[in-house]
């Protein structure tokens, strides 16, 4: 009975840990669905100018607070058009309330064209003019799928550009926070002793700050007249400052539990050096948790960024983020007059849900050995 390995079939290829995780993840429909949406949002964010008909700063002085135009395939007579079109909007003033009302004007049919020449945009230092769709610039045609804002800017185009800033902010903040958190957490957990004690007290100190007042206070310190990019970077820095601490704690706990495992002991027993134990045995076994943490933190940062920018203390114009777009309808009247300016809320909800779905799927998948 000392046949060593009856049940191992040498024909089947070995799967690495991440291949196992991938297999498990692919079985989770909810997670996959979330991932697809996340990827779509990311691609849209990266190529935002291509997918949007206008630049975010283009103003249309004649058409402020214009409601969304809907896409049609059938015209008034009911005949089908292979090329979708929108109607121009006729503007009327209510003689009693002096309110402007808009109604589609059948006279003005603006056919949507694809791969049109539009205003130029930069990508990786290259200049492009092609945009996915748009209407002919000539004879005053316009296309505002989500309507326009108080300055007559296209809400749809701004929202896509806002995706970019919001996601960039989220990725930047989480990546840096994760990096700091991992370094501090691993060192604290592995070296223990006084270093751990001091680090953990500092982490607790960071955690004891009341978040919101601190954000507001720190943001108030930012120079008012500073460049928008500088404000963006400092804003990200402040978010990082308050995020890494909690993560470093989680990593520390994980490192402490891995440090006590027999395979680390066994590595010590063969004389492995400290760095080797850290980087070959401990850190690789925390990666799955890091990935899961990151996917859960991204929607968190998106929400926080939106919230703070909504309050007007986050991303500053001319930069556009979902939160700063919502800032424009801070007062009730403009909300009442142009509810379509709420569109970024849809983007936020969709993205946050998608990230959470992806995170759930990943969390279930990173422990592939549990499954039968």
């Amino acid at each position, binding site marked *: *009975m*000392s046949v*060593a*390995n009856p*049940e*191992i079939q*040498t024909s089947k290829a*070995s*799967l*690495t*840990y991440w291949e*196992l995780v991938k297999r498990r993840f692919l*079985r989770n429909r909810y997670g996959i669905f979330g991932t697809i949406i996340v990827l779509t949002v990311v691609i849209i964010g990266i190529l935002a100018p291509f997918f949007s008909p206008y630049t975010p700063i283009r103003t249309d002085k004649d058409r402020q607070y214009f409601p969304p135009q809907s896409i049609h395939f059938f015209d008034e007579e009911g005949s089908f058009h292979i090329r979708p079109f929108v109607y121009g909007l006729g503007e009327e003033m209510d003689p009693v309330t002096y309110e402007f009302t808009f109604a589609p004007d059948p006279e003005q049919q603006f056919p949507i064209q694809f791969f049109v020449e539009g205003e130029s945009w930069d990508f990786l230092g290259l200049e492009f003019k092609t945009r996915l769709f748009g209407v002919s610039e000539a004879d005053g045609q316009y296309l505002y799928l989500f309507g326009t804002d108080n300055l007559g800017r296209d809400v749809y185009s701004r929202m896509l550009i806002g995706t970019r800033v919001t996601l960039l902010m989220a990725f930047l903040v989480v990546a840096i926070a994760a990096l700091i958190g991992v370094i501090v957490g691993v060192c604290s957990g592995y070296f223990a002793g006084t270093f751990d004690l001091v680090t953990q007290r500092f982490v607790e100190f960071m955690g004891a700050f009341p978040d919101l007042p601190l954000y507001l206070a720190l943001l108030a310190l930012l120079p008012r007249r500073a460049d928008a990019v500088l404000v963006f970077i400092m804003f990200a820095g402040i978010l990082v400052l308050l995020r890494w601490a909690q993560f470093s704690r989680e990593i520390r706990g994980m490192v402490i539990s891995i440090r006590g*495992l*027999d*395979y680390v*002991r*066994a*590595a*010590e*027993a*063969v*004389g*492995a*050096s400290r760095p*080797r134990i850290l980087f*070959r*045995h401990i850190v*690789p*076994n925390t990666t799955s948790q890091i990935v899961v943490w990151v996917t859960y933190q991204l929607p968190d940062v998106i929400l926080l960024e939106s919230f703070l920018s909504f309050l007007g203390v986050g991303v500053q114009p001319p930069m556009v983020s979902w939160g700063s777009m919502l800032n424009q309808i801070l007062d009730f009247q403009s909300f009442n007059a142009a509810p379509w300016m709420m569109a970024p809320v849809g983007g936020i909800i969709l993205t946050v849900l998608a990230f959470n779905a992806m995170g759930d799927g990943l969390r279930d998948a990173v422990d*592939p*050995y549990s*499954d*039968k």
Partner: protein
Amino acid sequence: MSTNSEQILLKAKDIEVGFPIIEGFVQAVRGVSFEIVQGKTLALVGESGSGKSVTARALMGMLSERAVVGKSASVEFSGQQLIGLSEEQLQKIRGSAISMIFQEPMTSLNPLYTVGNQIIESIQAHRKMPKKEARSEALRLLQEVQIPNPEARLDQYPHQLSGGQRQRVMIALAIANEPKLLIADEPTTALDVTIQAQILRLIKDLQVKYGMSVLLITHDLNVVRKTSEQICVMRNGEIVERGLTEEVFTNPQHPYTKHLIQSEPKGAPPPLQGEPPTSLQGDKVRVVFKIRHGSFFNRKTEDLVAVNDVSIKVRQSESVGVVGESGSGKTTLGLALIRLISSQGGEILFGDRRIDNVDRKDLRDLRTSVQVVFQDPFSSLNPRMIVRQIIAEGLVVNNIGSSDADRDEMVRIALKDVQMDPDVMDRFPHEFSGGQRQRIAIARAMVMKPKFVLLDEPTSALDLSIQAQIIDLLKDLRDKHKLSYLFISHDLKVIKALCHNVLVMQHGNVVEAGPTDQVLVNPQKEYTKALVNAAFEVVSDQPQSASQSFN
């Protein structure tokens, strides 16, 4: 089973249980039938994954929701068909006519309620009884299970009791409503060997007193032999052999049963040739842990002496066993001797070299000649590394071997040494079974060509038949490479089969030491006697008194 004259309490027929999994369907139990006689014990024996626990759960309708029970399955319990009963009907039977005790006494009691309340709740769930009366009934039950000082225990929480006491409480809960059938699922596996003997004794006594039938589920053949009248041996979801316990043990029919019975460790180590040189020696080794407690401003540290001035000597080709129950300090002693943890007193010599006072860097060259194999093969291999990396790590770290090809060859030899196919080098640990993983862990130690190996319970996480293979392997390796072993175990049988000398530890102290035959055959100290008795007799014959002091 010839049971004409006896009354059959439970008749299980054609029990089939399957679980849907992602790649299809697993048939965990197939066509299992057995009968339990009134007042007798039936043992279901098998290794892990044989379907014995699933079978027992199927009887009580306690399977997970995913489980699929075969259509022809039938469980007749004193004339009543249990399969197909509603959850409410089953609940009435569970805990009253049939009750169950589990393996893990740490988790089967609710930590938020006192022991008394849990027993009272169980009584009142099945019998209309005022609280006061139920309380005195609970007290009587605690006396019944021989818990010392039962009045006080009634108002204690589970965490205030030891493992053995908790298992007694579980038994009190199980017999609270005088069941006709007690299902005991590995009731003693998590307990120390002397406690195990007491618990088995208790179950036996209660069985006689209440006229209960017992369905005992276990992997431990000794327990079966001493406690059950009838036995069913399970393998891969089927019963391969059944019969009266004595008959099956004296004359096993099925090759698997024969194999299981032969797997019991036996034999003795070969005598040492002459007076071999000392390999590793510890002189009055002392390990102290600092326990911090008290508040932030009033911090106190207390010294916990885990190993109290223990002296030990392991010679070349010799195996020294260290036995003791959990918490006796045996693993701490082992780890301190090979300097994986530091000691606070005494001298440790490897050959002629003193090693207890050198620092990490100077220990480097020691690491190649002193190796260790751990208990749990599931946590001792890094899941992110392939077998080649795991085994070759020591070679890489210590710059042994001139090239990767050279090291690969060494890994190949080490794998052959532990009887594994060298082609498994590129596989990950999760692709192997427990026994195979333990072989890999042994290969990792052997590739360094050590002189001394610390074996920390290397077989206790494994099934019996695998355990026998690993012990044979360790014996072969010792004789082939003239290795010295320090073998830590709570299993006296394994120690007896493998070790020349033995050290019995309790609470960090050496109770008794000497040649294995002497200590284990003719123990001098009370504690050693109780240990030996529990290991070889299994069911304690003295109900409380002598063994009480260790509880």
